[in-house]
């Protein structure tokens, strides 16, 4: 096989050779390629954000309204009526601090799951690393998160909750939430491309998952001997981490978070491998 460049084209730059072959390294992290497509990733995020509240009356206010109304309902029924313990926090703060990551997670997960199917036309017409799609879904959710976070800041001010040293951990928990959504999203988007059943399973999954996470109750309600098992749900670590880092109340959820981090890494790496295997045939089967 001759791949030499003859002197006929002295002015032409020697272009790098791309080799397309059946075998792909699905276990490898595609970070260099993703980096070279960073502008496209930016445009996908930008598109998701732009179209999310198109033709709505109150627009991005939905990003605040959804968690806020949910918080009111939870505070009323689980708090005032059922007297669920709240680690000494006012119920609105207790619930809103959990709904922040939870709302982000559930929306990001749903968008990521549907993204391959929704972008079917583009996928079958042009190449780009498919990973950019679920990744952009997960990242664009952060804009809503930012908006709803402003509401939390206002509530914290109202209830006199000041940031403590624990707040420096907050970005780490946010990252953990993003990675959780991405990891699960990779699995589900790949599965959804093959089996549309996923779309119908997803609402149930999200609902069950919420009750398996310390959204409406503190994780201290879970018996200590089962706590490690509980930590396998990464959102348990995320939500406990959010509550702790944002309010400074309670003990740092060290062990639980460690287990959650390990679980997230497993889900994420498995999801990446599965997604990249699916990627090779997705344009034919989606």
């Amino acid at each position, binding site marked *: 096989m001759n791949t030499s*460049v003859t002197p006929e084209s002295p002015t032409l730059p020697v272009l790098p050779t791309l080799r397309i*072959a*059946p075998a792909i390294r699905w276990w490898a992290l595609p970070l260099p390629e993703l980096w070279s497509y960073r502008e496209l990733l930016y445009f996908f995020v930008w598109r998701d954000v*732009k179209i999310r509240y198109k033709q709505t009356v109150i627009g991005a206010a939905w990003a605040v309204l959804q968690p806020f109304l949910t918080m009111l309902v939870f505070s009323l029924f689980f708090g005032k009526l059922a007297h669920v313990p709240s680690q000494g926090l006012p119920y609105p703060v207790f619930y809103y601090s959990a709904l922040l990551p939870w709302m982000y997670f559930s929306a990001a997960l749903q968008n990521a799951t549907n993204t391959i199917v929704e972008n079917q036309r*583009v996928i079958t017409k*042009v190449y780009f690393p498919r990973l950019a799609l679920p990744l952009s879904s997960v990242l664009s959710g952060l804009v809503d998160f930012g908006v709803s976070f402003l509401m939390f800041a206002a509530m914290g001010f109202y209830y006199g909750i000041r940031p403590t040293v624990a707040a420096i951990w907050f970005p780490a928990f946010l990252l953990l939430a993003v990675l959780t959504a991405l990891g699960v999203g990779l699995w589900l988007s790949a599965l959804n491309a093959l089996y549309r059943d996923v779309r119908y399973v997803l609402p149930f999954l999200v609902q069950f998952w919420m009750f398996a996470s310390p959204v409406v109750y503190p994780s201290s309600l879970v018996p200590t001997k089962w706590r490690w098992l509980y930590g396998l749900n990464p959102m348990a670590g995320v939500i406990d981490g959010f509550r702790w880092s944002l309010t400074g109340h309670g003990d740092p959820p060290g062990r639980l978070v460690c287990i959650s981090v390990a679980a997230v890494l497993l889900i994420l790496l498995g999801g990446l491998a599965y997604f990249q295997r699916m990627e090779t045939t997705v344009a034919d089967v989606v």
Partner: protein
Amino acid sequence: MRDVFMRLLKAPFLRGEPRAPEHFWALRDVSFDVQQGEVVGLIGRNGAGKTTLLKLLSRITRPTEGYIEIRGRVGSLLEVGTGFHPELTGRENIYLSGAILGMSRREIGNKHDAIVAFAGVERFLDTPLKHYSSGMQMRLAFAVAAHLEPEILLVDEVLAVGDLEFQKRCLGKMDEVTKTGRTILFVSHQMNQIRRLCRRCIWIDDGRIRCAGSMLEVVSAYEASFSTPPSSAEYHRREGTRSTRFLSWRIAEPYTEESNVLDSFGSVTFEFVLGVNVDIRGGVNGIALFNSDHQLIWATSVSRLELSKGLHALRFKLPSLPLRPGVYHWQVSIWEGGHCFDQWTCVPDMIVGTKPVTHPHEEWQGLLNLPWEFRMERQNRSERGQEPSLVNPQVD
């Protein structure tokens, strides 16, 4: 020097129920090289695997076996308007679609004005795309695609859509692009587009390369495959007594590899071989040329022929036969005094494979592909006044 080197490939497609996948090879044993700056046409019937090939080259799907090597940035235009979103404005869609097709943000920024001007949508740039007419959407889509400048361009039959004006603009742009030294793979069903744009051609049939080589050769072979195959039954079912019959025909001059392919504008000699079993006095030889619509192009007859038993070559020399490229067929006959010995619709068909030199637009290509010259001279009034001979020539 090769900018693209490909050697390939076998790709099975999954069709039908996901639970009972039925595999078939969409492409098999396909192997070819494309040099930098070449414009290669991909032809073949629907479902032959042309689009699959483009999809493999653009990495949309992966080959199951084999490999492809590509030097340079690949841009694929498998449809116009890839990535357009109806809720976004025209301007936003330029950026989005450009990015999806592989342009960088800065590149799009630089070309933004040119794209807008090409599409002619200045007034509606900040209107959501869903309010555009479909024609405007198409124009905008093509404007973005036309400003894509990768080293290698893969174009599926995007030119087949849109109104005449749009097609014309596309073709003009393609003409322009082919002159910039970019490597282009071009799928089309319109042979005259292929003739115009490509120098090389690959004919894919049933997932394999049926024929590859010079455009002329491949297009001719492809077109010939559509003409009626010489079935032996038809060959024998002829009018006439068959004691005397035509045996073969060819283009005697100029010499071409395929003796039924005419690829020059100059003089041409057709030769028809006639086998004679009885002596003929006062024979009449009729000859007619038809196009694929069975429209008579040209005909004549020669009378008072004296033919003895044996083989005779009847030669017709024409100064030029500048027909529009395509498939034609001859019909020859031999008569004597109202009695028809043989009338033969010649096989194989004649393929005219000259390069089109007339109107670039398929609809305006007439029956003739006649080379032409154009001259324009300035004539001003004072000169005219000084040339009374033009008004009143040769008055002595």
